[in-house]
C-alpha cells in the first residue's frame, strides 16, 4: 500500500510532430515526498505533470503509479489515485463553491453516484482543509483570484488521492496568497503523508518549501536533489538562463537566489516554442 503513493517515470518520450517535448525522462518520486519541478517555459514541466496524471500518454516509456502502469488504467481509475490542479481556471458560471468542490468526487462516485444527494464527508473535509467552508454557498466566479485558487485546490483534494500534482499553483496570485496556498499544501502533506509534485516558477518558493528540486531543460532532467544541492549559480545559468548569486536564508538556512540579468537565449529555442 505504501508504494501506491510513489511515481515512476521510466524512459518517457513525448512530443508533437517536429516538436519533441520530453526526450527520455526517468524520475522516481518516493511516497510522501514534496518535489518541485523547475525549468524555463516550454522545457516540459507541465507535460511531465500531465503524463504523471495520466492525461497524456507517453510516445515511448511508461509511467507507473504505485506499480500500476497508467496506460492500463481508465480515466476514472486514474483520477482515484492522482489529482492534478491545472494552471488555468476557466469560469464556471452559476456554480457555488460547494458544488464545484463536490465535482471532485466524480472519480470515486461515478456518473450515477453523482446523481445521489447525500453528504460527502470528503467534500466537507476538503472545504475545511483550505479554509473555504464559510464561503461554501457563494458563487465561485464572484471570488477573488486567491480565494478561487483555494477552492480549486479543495476540488483536487476532494478526489481524496494519495498523490497531488500542482501545475504552477501560485501563478496570478499575490505574495500573501502564494504563501497561503503553498503552506496549505505543506501542511496537508505532513498531516496525510501525501506525495506532492508541483511545478513552480518561483525558485524562492521551490527552495523554501520543497524537499527535492528536479530541474528540466529541453525535455531532459538536468538536476535532481535537495534545494541546497541543486540551487547554485550554475543551475541559474544552465537551467533558468539567468546570471545570479545564491546565498542562504539567515534564519531557515535554505538557499536564496539573487538573479542579476538574463543570459543569451537558447540556441535552438524556436524548437520548443
Amino acid at each position, binding site marked *: 500500500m505504501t508504494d501506491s503513493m510513489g511515481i515512476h517515470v521510466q524512459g518517457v518520450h513525448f512530443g508533437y510532430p517536429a516538436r519533441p517535448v520530453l526526450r527520455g525522462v526517468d524520475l522516481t518520486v518516493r511516497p510522501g515526498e514534496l518535489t518541485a519541478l523547475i525549468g524555463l517555459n516550454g522545457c516540459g514541466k507541465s507535460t511531465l505533470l500531465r503524463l504523471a*496524471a495520466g*492525461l497524456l500518454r507517453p510516445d515511448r516509456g511508461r509511467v507507473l503509479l504505485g506499480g500500476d502502469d497508467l496506460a492500463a488504467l*481508465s*480515466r*476514472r481509475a*486514474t*483520477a*482515484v489515485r492522482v*489529482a*492534478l*490542479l*491545472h494552471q*488555468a481556471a*476557466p*469560469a*464556471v*458560471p*452559476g*456554480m*457555488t463553491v460547494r*458544488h*464545484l468542490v463536490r*465535482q*471532485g468526487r*466524480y*472519480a470515486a*462516485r*461515478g*456518473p*450515477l*453516484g*453523482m*446523481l445521489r444527494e447525500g453528504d460527502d464527508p470528503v467534500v466537507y473535509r476538503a472545504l475545511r482543509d483550505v479554509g473555504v467552508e464559510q464561503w461554501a454557498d457563494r458563487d465561485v466566479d464572484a471570488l477573488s483570484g486567491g480565494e478561487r485558487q483555494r477552492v480549486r485546490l479543495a*476540488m*483536487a483534494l476532494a*478526489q481524496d488521492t494519495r498523490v497531488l500534482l500542482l501545475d504552477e499553483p501560485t501563478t496570478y496570485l499575490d505574495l500573501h496568497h502564494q504563501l497561503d496556498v503553498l503552506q496549505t499544501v505543506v501542511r496537508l502533506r505532513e498531516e496525510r503523508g501525501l506525495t506532492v509534485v508541483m511545478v513552480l516558477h518561483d525558485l524562492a518558493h521551490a527552495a523554501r518549501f520543497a524537499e527535492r528540486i528536479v530541474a528540466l531543460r529541453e525535455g531532459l532532467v538536468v538536476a535532481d536533489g535537495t534545494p541546497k544541492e541543486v540551487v547554485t549559480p550554475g543551475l541559474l545559468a544552465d537551467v533558468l538562463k539567468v546570471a545570479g548569486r545564491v546565498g542562504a536564508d539567515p534564519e531557515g538556512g535554505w538557499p536564496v537566489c539573487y538573479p542579476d540579468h538574463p543570459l543569451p537565449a537558447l540556441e535552438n529555442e524556436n524548437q520548443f516554442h
Partner: protein
Amino acid sequence: MNRRFAALAALAVVCAAVELVAGRGMSPSTVWDLLGGGGDTTEQHIFWQLRLPRLLVAMGAGASLAVAGLILQSALRNPLAGPEVTGVTPGAVLGAVTATALGLAGWDSPLAVVVAACAGGCVGALLLWLLAGRAGGDPAQTAVYGVLVSAVLGGFTAMVLLVEPGELGSVVQWLVGTTEGRVWEHWHLLWPWALAWGAAAWLLAGPLTLLRCGDDIAQAAGLAARPARTLAMLCAVALTAGAVAAVGALGFVGLLVPHLAMALFGADLRVGLPGAALLGAVVVCGADAAAQLSSRLLPRVLDADQLTLPVGALTACLGAALLLVVVRRAPGRTF
C-alpha cells in the same frame, strides 16, 4: 428550489388553462362544462381530440427543446449554443422534409419522420463538429460555424421544397414550427421518445456538470470528456428531432430557455435539467396560448377574415429579443 418548482408548475397549469380556452369559438364556461363531461358532440370532439393533444404536444416539444439546449450549452461550454444555431434543428428539418418529399415518411408514418429528423439532426451536429471541432471551442467562433451550417442546411431544405412542392403545405409548417392540427397520434409518438431521451440526459447530469467546468478540469476529475460529450450530444439531437418531427423548428426555445433555467435553478444539472424541461413546457404552452389569442384578436384589428399565427413565429420574435439581452448583459462570458 422546491418553491421555484412549485411556482413554475402553477404557472404551467395557468398556461395550460389559458391555452385550452384560447382557441376560437369556445367560451371558458363551455370548457368548464366539457371538463365536467358536458357539452355537445362537436364541442367534445374539438376539446378532447384537438385541443388537449395540441396542448400536450406543445408542452412536450417545449420541454424537449429546452433540455436539448441545456445539454448543448453545457457539453459545448457555449452560451450561444442551441439546437437552432448548431445545425441540429435545421438538419432535423431537412431530414424530415427530405424523407417526406421522397415518400419515405409522411402523415401516415410519423415514426419515419422522427427517424429522418434524427438522422438529419446528427448530420447537422456532425457538420458543426467537422468545422468547429478543431477550432478549440471558442464560443463565438462555434456560433458562427453553427450559423453557417444552419444556413447551408436551410438552403438544402428550400431546394427540396422547390423540387418537390407537392407536400409544401404540410411541410412549410416544419420550417416555422406550429402546433396547429396536432392530435393524439403526435402525442403518443412524442412522449415516450422525449421521456426516454430526457431520462438518458438526466443520467448524464454528473458528466455534463463536469463538462461545464471545462475539459481539462473534467478530465483531471476522472471524466473521459470525449465519449461523455458524444453521448450528451446524441441525447440533444434525439430530443430535438422528436420535437421537430412533432411541431417543427420552434425558434429560439432551445437557445433561451436554458439561460432562464440556469438563472432559476443554478448550475446543478440534476435540478437544472428537469427545471429546464418544465420551463420549456411553460414557455411554448404560453406562447401557443398567446398565438391563439392573437389569432382571435388580430383579424378584428386588421379587418381580415381568418388569420392563424404559428407559435414558432412568436417564439422566434420573443427569443430574438431575449437573446439580445443575453448578449448585451454578458459580453465575453463563456456561459
